[in-house]
C-alpha cells in the first residue's frame, strides 16, 4: 500500500473542503434549519406525534440522512469529476498508486466530510428539538456506512459523467426524490397499504428506518433488514468501482 499517496489525496480533498467551507458546511446547516422552521413548526403543529415522539424530533434522523446522502454524492462526484475536467487527473493516473488507494483517498475524504456534516446537523437539530440517541454506536455505524456507500456511489457518478449536467442529473432526478419519498418526513406506516408496498422498493427507506431506530427504537422495517440493505448497496457500489478500474472505464483511453 502506498499510504503516503492515500494521505496526499485525502488531505488534498480535505483542503478543498476547508477552502469551500461556506458552501460545504454552512449551506446544509442553513437549509436544515429551514426544514425545522417549515416542517417542524408549520406541519408539526398539526401532526403532534408520530409513533410516540414529537414530529420535530421524528424528522431529525431523516433530515440528517437527506444531507448525508446528497452531500456524499455531491462531494465524491465532484472530487473525481473535477480533475478529469481540468486535466489534473493525469498525475493520479501516472503515479504509482493502485485503484484501491485512489478510491480510499477520494471516497474517504468525501465520507469524512459528510459524517462531520451529519454530526453538525444533529447538533443544530438539538437546538430546536429534544434529541435522544438510544444506540449511539449503531447510529454511528449507520451514519458511516451510509456516508461511505453514497460517497462510493458519487465517485461512480463522477467517473461516468462527461459534463456538468450529468453530474447533477442522477442526484437531482433520482436521489433527491427517493430520499423525500423514503420516509424522511413521515413514517411509512402512515401511508395507505398500496403505497406502503411501493415505498418498500425504495432503498432509502431502509437507510432512514435503521438510522431512526438507532435514535428512537422506532422503525418501518426490521433493523437487520436495514443493515442488510445498506451493506448490499455498499457491495454493489464496490463491485461497480472495481469494474470501472479494471476496465479503465472513462479514465483511460
Amino acid at each position: 500500500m502506498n499510504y503516503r499517496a492515500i494521505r496526499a489525496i485525502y488531505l488534498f480533498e480535505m483542503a478543498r473542503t476547508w477552502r469551500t467551507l461556506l458552501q460545504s458546511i454552512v449551506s446544509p446547516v442553513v437549509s436544515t434549519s429551514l426544514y425545522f422552521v417549515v416542517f417542524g413548526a408549520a406541519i408539526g403543529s398539526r401532526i403532534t406525534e408520530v409513533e410516540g415522539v414529537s414530529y420535530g424530533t421524528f424528522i431529525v434522523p431523516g433530515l440528517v440522512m437527506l444531507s448525508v446522502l446528497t452531500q456524499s454524492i455531491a462531494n465524491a462526484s465532484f472530487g473525481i469529476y473535477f480533475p478529469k475536467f481540468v486535466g489534473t487527473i493525469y498525475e493520479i493516473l501516472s503515479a504509482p498508486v493502485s485503484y484501491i488507494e485512489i478510491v480510499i483517498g477520494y471516497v474517504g475524504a468525501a465520507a469524512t466530510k459528510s459524517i462531520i456534516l451529519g454530526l453538525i446537523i444533529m447538533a443544530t437539530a438539538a437546538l430546536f428539538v429534544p434529541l435522544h440517541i438510544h444506540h449511539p454506536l449503531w447510529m454511528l455505524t449507520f451514519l458511516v456506512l451510509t456516508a461511505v456507500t453514497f460517497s462510493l456511489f458519487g465517485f461512480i457518478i463522477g467517473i461516468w459523467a462527461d459534463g456538468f449536467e450529468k453530474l447533477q442529473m442522477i442526484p437531482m432526478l433520482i436521489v433527491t426524490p427517493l430520499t423525500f419519498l423514503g420516509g424522511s418526513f413521515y413514517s411509512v406506516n402512515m401511508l395507505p397499504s398500496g403505497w406502503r408496498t411501493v415505498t418498500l422498493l425504495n432503498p432509502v427507506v431502509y437507510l432512514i428506518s435503521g438510522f431512526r431506530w438507532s435514535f428512537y427504537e422506532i422503525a418501518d422495517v426490521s433493523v437487520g433488514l436495514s443493515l442488510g440493505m445498506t451493506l448490499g448497496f455498499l457491495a454493489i457500489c464496490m463491485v461497480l468501482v472495481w469494474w470501472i478500474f479494471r476496465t479503465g472505464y472513462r479514465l483511460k483511453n
Partner: protein
Amino acid sequence: MLAPPPIISVSNLSKTYGSGFKALKGINLDIKRGEIFALLGPNGAGKTTLISIICGIANLSEGRVTVGGHDINSDYRAARSLIGLVPQELHTDSFETVWATVSFSRGLFGKPKNPAHIEKVLKDLSLWDKKDSKIITLSGGMKRRVMIAKALSHEPQILFLDEPTAGVDVELRKGMWDVVRGLQASGVTIILTTHYIQEAEEMADRIGVINKGEIILVEDKAGLMQKLGKKQLTLHLQQKIDAIPPALAPYKLHLSDDGRLLTYDYDTKGERTGITSLLSDLRNAGIHISDLDTTQSSLEDIFVSLVRAP
C-alpha cells in the same frame, strides 16, 4: 562488453483508440540510461500517445513496454516510481499554492516529506519567491515550470517533457534547457518531444523521428549532423562538355544531362573542402565557369523527405 540495458524498452507497441483510429503502429524503441532523447514529429504523429502509454495514462493495445526493467502493466508501481511527467497541456490546480501542489506530487509518488528537496527544485526553476502564491495567479511560463517542479518533486530517474517549449519565451526556454542539462549531469534520463528541429538539434544526444504512428528514424545527433554537414557545390559552365576529363576523376563530380552543370559534394566539417584545388584543376583542364552556387541539405530537408516518403 555487453551494452547496458536500456532504461526504457518499447517493443511492438500499437495503440488503437476507441474511435478505431490507429495512433501507433508497431513501435520499437530503446532509450539509453542517462541520455537526452528527442522525439521529433509533426502534430498528430503520435508523440503524446506514446508518452501517455509509457506513463500509464493510456492503455496499450498491443506490445510491451518496460521501464527500468519493470513491465508497465504487471509491475506498474516500480515502473511509474521512476518517471516524472510534464504533459503537453497545462493542467494545474488553480487554487492550490505552488508549495502545496509540488508537495502533493511527492506524496502521491509515495516519497517521504523532504522540504529541502522541494526548496531546491523550486529554486532551480526560479519559483522560490512564488512558493506561497496560488497557481491561478501565475503566468503561463510559470505554470509550465510548476508542472516541471511537480514532476521533479519525487526525484525521478526519467523525465518526460512533452513539447516543453510550446508557448514559452526565449528567455525561459534557455533557463529550461539549463535545468535539463543539470538533470542530465545528475544522471536523469530525459525524453522530450518537439516539432521544432532546432530544439532537437540543440538539446538531444539522440533523435527519433516519428510520423503517422511509426518511428522512421533513430539516430545519434552526430550522425544526423554529418548528413546535415554535407554541402553541394554547383558549377555553371560557359561551354557544355561531353564528359568529365580524367584529370578530375578524384573529385567524383556529377555532370548534368545537358553538359552544362557540374556538381560536387563536400563536407563542411572535413579538414579541407577541396574546393580550391578543384577550381584550379578545372582551369588547368580548360573548363571555364560562368557562375557557381552552394546548397546545404538541412535536417529540415531530411525530415521533410522522410515524412513525405510513402
